[in-house]
């Protein structure tokens, strides 16, 4: 998962490569030529997490890949996440957290989402710095999956690539 405090999934250098490795100046105008997918992704920060750069980045990335994005911002209360998910029926739900409470917050959030029959099949993923001590244990990752996430992107350089592979695998239409 792309995070402010994470090694960037792009080449190093003074100019700024895009995700596919092409190089461009930091301020150059770009015209991403991506087909609209007619699918909405909900992006949410953890309930106690005030960080936003991760959410801003995810929104831009998802929009470039053709998704409509509902960015719920930081500190998302569980009820709000459930309400917005019911209203938008997203193709994907993304919880992103970097404050170290992602594991606890994330389990509670997905639990409430999965309680609703209408939301049981919505693909949901979580990623970021989920604990206060660096990498997650295999046990914690397994618990997040057991709680209802379809994938967990632990803090690491591989995160963005595998997240993009997941996005590519999503249907190019609205899920109902």
């Amino acid at each position, binding site marked *: 998962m792309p995070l402010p405090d994470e090694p960037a999934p792009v080449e190093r250098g003074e100019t700024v490569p895009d995700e596919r490795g092409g190089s461009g100046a930091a*301020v150059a105008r770009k015209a991403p030529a991506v087909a609209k997918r007619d699918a909405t992704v909900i992006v949410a920060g953890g309930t106690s997490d005030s960080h936003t750069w991760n959410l801003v980045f995810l929104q831009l990335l998802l929009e470039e890949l053709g998704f409509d994005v509902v960015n719920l911002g930081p500190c998302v209360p569980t009820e709000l996440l459930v309400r917005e998910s019911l209203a938008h029926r997203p193709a994907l739900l993304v919880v992103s957290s970097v404050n170290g409470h992602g594991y606890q917050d994330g389990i509670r959030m997905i639990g409430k989402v999965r309680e609703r029959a209408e939301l049981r099949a919505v693909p949901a993923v979580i990623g970021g710095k989920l604990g206060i001590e660096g990498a997650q244990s295999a046990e914690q990752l397994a618990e997040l999956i057991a709680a209802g996430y379809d994938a967990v992107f632990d803090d690491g350089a591989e995160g963005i690539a595998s997240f993009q592979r997941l996005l590519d695998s999503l249907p190019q239409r609205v899920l109902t």
Partner: protein
Amino acid sequence: MSGGGFGSYVRRAHLAGDLVVQPRMGMSDPALMRAGLLATKAAAGRTVGTVTLDSYTRVNDLESAGLALLEGVPLNGYPIVSHDLETTRRVLDGIHGPDFPVQVRHGSAAPLDIFRALLRVGLDASEGGPVSYCLPYGRIPLRESVRNWSRSCELFSRLRELGREPHLETFGGCMLGQLCPPSQLVAISALEALFFHQHGLRSISASYAQQTHREQDLEAVFALRRLCAELLPGTDWHVVVYAYMGVYPTTPHGALALLGEAAELAAATGSERLIVKTVAESVRIPTVAENVAALEHAAARAARTERVADGGGDSQTYAEAAALVSAVLNLDPDVGRAMLLAFQRGYLDIPYCLHPDNQGRTRSYLDGEGRLRWADIGRLPLAGVVEAGESRTVSSGELLGALSHIRWKYDDGAIAAGPGHALAGGAA
């Protein structure tokens, strides 16, 4: 000004020629928290202590904070409202005093319970602000945050009736951590300082977080000092510099080099205090030992740094910051109401900030020299002050590049200077 408090300690250190250095430290375990304070106190350098609160307390989710204590789940800070009074008193006992003041750091837009809790345990220094602890940080409407902070400041300033001097620091100079142009950081920091003053505080510090370009940062700190002198007569004020708050270098060498530059920025501008970052910052919450190493590194670097004279005249950063401050203050004599109106009209507007009370019309970028500049001023009252540029669309890759610029610069510098060793203990 009256003695004994946080502000007067910093003033005395400054008169003695020392930069006060301070960690960002908070652990939920009382014994660890006490050990962290003791280690900070014992570090080489003029230090003050920090109790940083956890995220649940910050968002008033006291149920989750309390539950974590019951279950022994470690939090990312010290839950001062949930720990009982005696526990916190024992944490501070024999440590906190006139020779070692302790500041409570939180990040709450609804901080009244936090202020009550810190007053009960005899603490008298904190930080935040109605804008800087609201807009980037959560969902509470700005109007509510202004109201909450007004009440909290009024409660806190009543310590003065007891002969104590409460101290508050603005967080406005750190908005979003990175990519907010320095002039707006300076303006919001100065406005929050004035807000504290209007609500009775007389010992105030104004923050500024190191950004991406040394000369621009020098301009910004001098601009902030000049605005504080203009806006805060009869107040014991100082400036606190924060080591870079954005995406931090991952190599020990790169992290220390960036921290060293922050210490230099603080000392060169005659600033009084510095909040440090550690070599672990990019991967996890740092240990006590890592914090002590950062404090000592910064103090030593500051001691070797020569003062730089303010060039005088209006720098670009001062011109922009002064234009923002005066446009805001012209909206209403009450600075809280003035700031609310300013965000409604887009006179203050934080780039990339997702909060509904922020218009979000402004954008920033890094120029070829690494200066942080306006790509789009939206409705900021800066026409004629900032050259109007073509507004730009920023891609996710470009944003990530701008966010990571400093990490790359310092890590690459570190690699060029010789192979660093990988930092143990975190995900790479």
